[in-house]
């Protein structure tokens, strides 16, 4: 049951082989046993989860079940869920109980799904290793001495250790795809604007996008059917017709044109990762795809551009944490200014402070044109690179991360080395394109993800491309040792 697909779980629930309460309890028991070490979850509330499961069982008994009814999901702790503590991995929100539901949470609730708990993450989603969380590091289930990636590291570890059938994540610069790659999962960052940001704690608003993390592309498609959709409460939510993301899963891949960006296979890519990715591409050729070399010449620039734009937006978004309306407030202060400064010094961790300060600096008087405006101009060049590439191909493939999971502590003292983790993912966010990582094999016993980048709104096709690969490979079904 712990390795079952969402479809298999729905079938078992529908056939009364297991109830939602039993299924939820099964995962809660596993969490109680394994989470003290793995630390994938920050907050659990078994009573709430089981009450939702009982309600789902009633729906199933009445014959009113949808595809996800009764299935438990782990929710990244960036999504506000009414009555649940919602911390965003920060001391600032250590005792914040959300007074309302994020759109994504409502969508899962309306589908009759069960909220299994809130998963650990880098503080305010700023990190690539889950080491910046106020609530402690997360272990990679494939090697407990290594990081699960980040920022959706708790969600990735939870699904990899089978502490949840699937989970939600968010991706601002690679925070779904990189941990999916490092933990051997499938993860999709949709086109910007497809999933509502309402109630999703903001990091960099023009880049943040929610998405599913699961074992297979088919599971991702089923979750996308619940997560995607127009929401008036998010001003950047796109008004589009409802899609069935499973509709193309079984299409053949014959004639698919895959673009291989030469910059994604250049210096900086681990040789073991390169081999796995090239083997996966060979598998696609066997499935009838053709490959063509393309170029994304501004790839290297995506990192400096991102580290101007994301901190700039973050410094503005995080100005709301002032100790007045909610969240942490310093115990002692002399006046209002002192209250702000002490509250924020105490409430934020080192990496968050650094990014707020970088953002403050690049937006400060006299520097705007040299940094922020310049970065926005380069952002257009980066988006145009993809536009050119998609004239030659249907999708782009390459690695999701430059290496496999690295050792805990290895990059904590060098922010710039940590930032390079996102070399192959960041440009996708800057352009607003959809990107996905699917398990493609192992290098030295550690999972490697293949990244699939599609054109705007091509998620259904990308899921088809992932699914067809998963019909002829079983990397997505492999489980780490020691989680029985």
């Amino acid at each position, binding site marked *: 049951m712990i390795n079952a697909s969402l479809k298999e779980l729905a079938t078992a629930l529908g056939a009364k082989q297991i109830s939602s309460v039993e299924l939820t309890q099964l995962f809660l028991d596993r969490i109680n046993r394994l989470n003290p070490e793995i630390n994938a979850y920050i907050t659990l509330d078994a009573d709430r989860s089981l009450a939702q499961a009982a309600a789902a069982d009633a729906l199933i008994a009445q014959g009113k079940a949808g595809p996800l009814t009764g299935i438990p999901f782990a929710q990244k702790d960036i999504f506000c869920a009414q009555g649940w503590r919602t911390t965003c991995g920060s001391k600032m929100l250590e005792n914040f109980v959300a007074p309302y539901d994020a759109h994504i949470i409502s969508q899962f609730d309306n589908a009759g799904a069960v909220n299994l708990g809130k998963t650990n993450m880098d503080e305010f989603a700023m990190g690539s290793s889950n080491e910046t969380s106020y609530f402690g590091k997360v272990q990679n289930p494939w090697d407990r001495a290594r990081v699960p990636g980040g920022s959706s590291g708790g969600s990735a570890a939870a699904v990899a250790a089978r502490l949840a059938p699937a989970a939600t994540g968010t991706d601002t610069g690679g925070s779904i795809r990189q941990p999916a790659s490092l933990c051997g999962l499938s993860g999709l960052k949709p086109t910007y604007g497809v999933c509502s940001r309402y109630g999703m704690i903001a990091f960099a608003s023009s880049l943040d996008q929610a998405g599913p993390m699961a074992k297979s592309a088919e599971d991702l498609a089923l979750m996308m059917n619940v997560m995607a959709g127009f929401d008036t409460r998010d001003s*950047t939510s*796109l008004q589009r017709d409802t899609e069935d993301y499973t509709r193309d899963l079984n299409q053949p891949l014959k004639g698919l044109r895959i673009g291989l960006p030469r910059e994604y296979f250049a210096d900086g890519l681990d040789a073991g990762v390169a081999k796995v990715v090239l083997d996966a591409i060979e598998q696609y050729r066997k499935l009838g795809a053709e490959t063509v070399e393309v170029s994304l010449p501004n790839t290297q620039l995506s*990192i400096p551009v991102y580290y101007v734009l994301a901190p700039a937006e973050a410094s503005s978004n995080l100005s709301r944490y002032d100790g007045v309306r909610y969240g942490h407030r310093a115990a002692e202060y002399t006046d209002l200014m002192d209250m702000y400064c002490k509250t924020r010094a105490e409430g934020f961790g080192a990496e968050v402070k*650094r990014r707020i*300060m*970088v953002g403050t600096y690049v937006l400060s008087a006299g520097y705007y044109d040299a940094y922020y405006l310049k970065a926005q*101009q380069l952002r257009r*060049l980066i*988006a145009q690179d993809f536009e050119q590439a998609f004239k030659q191909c249907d999708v782009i493939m390459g690695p999701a991360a430059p290496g496999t999971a690295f050792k805990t502590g290895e990059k904590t003292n*060098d922010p710039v080395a940590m930032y390079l983790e996102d070399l192959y993912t960041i440009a996708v966010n800057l352009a607003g394109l959809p990107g996905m990582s699917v398990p493609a094999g192992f290098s030295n016993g550690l999972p490697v993800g293949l990244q699939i980048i599609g054109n705007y709104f091509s998620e259904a096709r990308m899921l088809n491309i992932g699914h067809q690969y998963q019909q002829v490979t079983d990397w997505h079904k492999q489980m780490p040792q020691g989680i029985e």
Partner: protein
Amino acid sequence: MSLTIDDVKRIAHLARIEVTEADAHATLEKLGGILGLIEQMQAVDTTGIEPMSHSQDVTQRLRDDVVTEINQRELFQSIAPAVENGLYLVPKVIE
């Protein structure tokens, strides 16, 4: 371009983050590395390129001018650090 310790303190103040002398020195080193990375942007000539602030070419939606939200003051203030009579309490700002 390199930052000084006074720059760090000025930025921290603008960001409303208290820094100790030791914090400022540690931050100076880390920010220096990040700004060095950012500096790579200056190698590209971007004259005449229109800035891109957003990936989708969309305009702000309008809605009817009607009340859509209900008053939830008590709920929202229940999580505030300090409130009194429906007001948020902060240190005195006007003498």
